[in-house]
């Protein structure tokens, strides 16, 4: 592993109590939810991780503690290194402070996390649905949200499904 990356990982580990997990040459830093803004600011200002690649979330249902892991993927233009930050969140009313002040890019990624997973971001300037219609109920990418598929029409059930399908007449 690169020395700069090693130094950054060890520094974050000592200062903020993060765990370091390595797989396939990539580093995951697991940080508690209360410290996410401090870690992001330290990574951006002191260690040169100034490019915010993407932010997303993973759902670990039916495990409730923690249920979500919010991921921030960062890149350093000066040192050419990538890093991933994981923030575990609990299942009931998950919320996190917004990273919009640190990385301007995070605006739409956090809106998408709110839309798809229901994670609220405290202090976000414009938290509303981005991909689904504005009056949609539910958060689609959660594991307990159904896929919503329609029954496939074979020859044996063609007449049944056809009767129930709402076709437009005019």
């Amino acid at each position, binding site marked *: 592993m690169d020395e700069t990356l090693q130094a950054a990982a060890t520094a974050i580990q000592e200062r903020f109590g993060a765990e370091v997990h390595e797989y396939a040459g990539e580093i995951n830093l697991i940080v508690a939810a209360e410290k996410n803004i401090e870690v992001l600011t330290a990574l951006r200002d002191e260690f040169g991780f100034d490019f915010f690649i993407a932010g997303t979330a993973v759902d670990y249902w039916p495990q409730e503690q923690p249920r979500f892991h919010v991921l921030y*993927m960062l890149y350093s233009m000066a040192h050419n290194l990538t890093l991933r930050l994981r923030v575990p969140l609990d299942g009931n009313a998950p919320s996190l402070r917004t990273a919009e002040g640190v990385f301007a890019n995070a605006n739409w990624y956090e809106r998408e996390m709110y839309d798809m997973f229901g994670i609220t971001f405290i202090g976000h300037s414009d938290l509303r649905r981005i991909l689904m219609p504005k009056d949609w109920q539910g958060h689609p990418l959660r594991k307990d949200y159904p896929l919503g598929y329609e029954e496939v029409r074979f020859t044996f059930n063609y007449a049944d499904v056809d009767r129930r399908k709402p076709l437009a007449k005019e």
Partner: protein
Amino acid sequence: MTDAQQVRPEELDGMSHLVSERALKGETMLLNMGPQHPSTHGVLRLLLELDGEIVVNCIPDIGFLHTGIEKTMESKIYIQSLVCTDRMDYLHSLGNNLCYSLAVEKLVGLDVPPRAQVLRVMLAELTRISSHLIWMGTSALDLAAMSVFLYGMRERELILDIFEMISGQRMMTSYIRPGGVWRDVPAEFEKAVRDFLDVMPRRLDEYESLLTKNALFLERTVGIGKISTEDCIRWGISGPIMRATGLPYDLRKMRPYSGYEQYDFNIPTHDGCDIYGRYLVRVQEVRESLKIIRQALDRLPYGPVRSNNRKFVPPPRSELGVSMESLIHHFKLWTEGFHAPAEGVYASVESPRGELGFYLEGDGGTKPRRAFYRGPSFANLQIMPILTRKHFVADVVGIIGSIDIVLGDTDR
């Protein structure tokens, strides 16, 4: 929502905190460039706040093409999810396949034979050329240069013929799979690619003679839609938009994948930061892609095109009649699929629009827990307010064309 339609402040439903006070009082006009519009390159809705003809603010509204591909990929085994990846950034479908295959190979630790690496590079560059041809055609069409569109589609047919020759499908080929490529290329492939390489540079000169020094084109593109390098880094913009500000950041050189470090090519940049700079960068990129394809074709080695690791890659059909283990592997892989560890990996490639990435996390089973697609247009579309501030309405059309968005990778 046919063509542009004025929006009354009480119809804003949820977006009223984004427009200025003057709009709510009625001093500035709110104009809706609706989801169905000839110049928005897909279903994108832009809410423009206009002071006369000058744009004060521009708010993009996406989600009209949301297909739930990420949730669909969570319910299919890894090899089945590959088919869904074609349709995300539909102009660069082989590149999506490549990114997904790189992520799966990183996750389970698969090797790729050298012949497959070279084929992947060639096909990725051919896809890049076809995407740039469509970009050039549609954005020139928006600025009323219609003949470039017809010429671009004519060249693109040559590339689609090559894709059809190797995989049977013109667009959504699903040819690049984890472990290599699907099957070996036929004997006519090399001649077809060499003919294309001979024809293309002269045609590119023709298109450049139509646009590059055209006074009308220069009037509409020089100095319009500027963004600085610091803003690009702040907003996570990559690709030709950043290269047109002067920074030679290209994933093929910075974080090379699939053997790109062995090829000799330059990264075109321009200092203009405007639409014209992006146009020049993209045309030069097509020339560099032609160089890479020629080098790849010259060094194409003999050998297998799929990995030998039968635990993850299905065996070729010719083996099924003679080997019992091949039959068992084939059966297990196509009915149940392989198991991936409960780890997360991120793989990225350079698409014609910027950095395209896949974050794949397994859960120990045969289906991915999370397949997240980092589409470049999702990040690139956020800078629309910055690019269009204080420009005329007619420039908005040119600016959207220059960012080269594809709504498939924004909305997935």
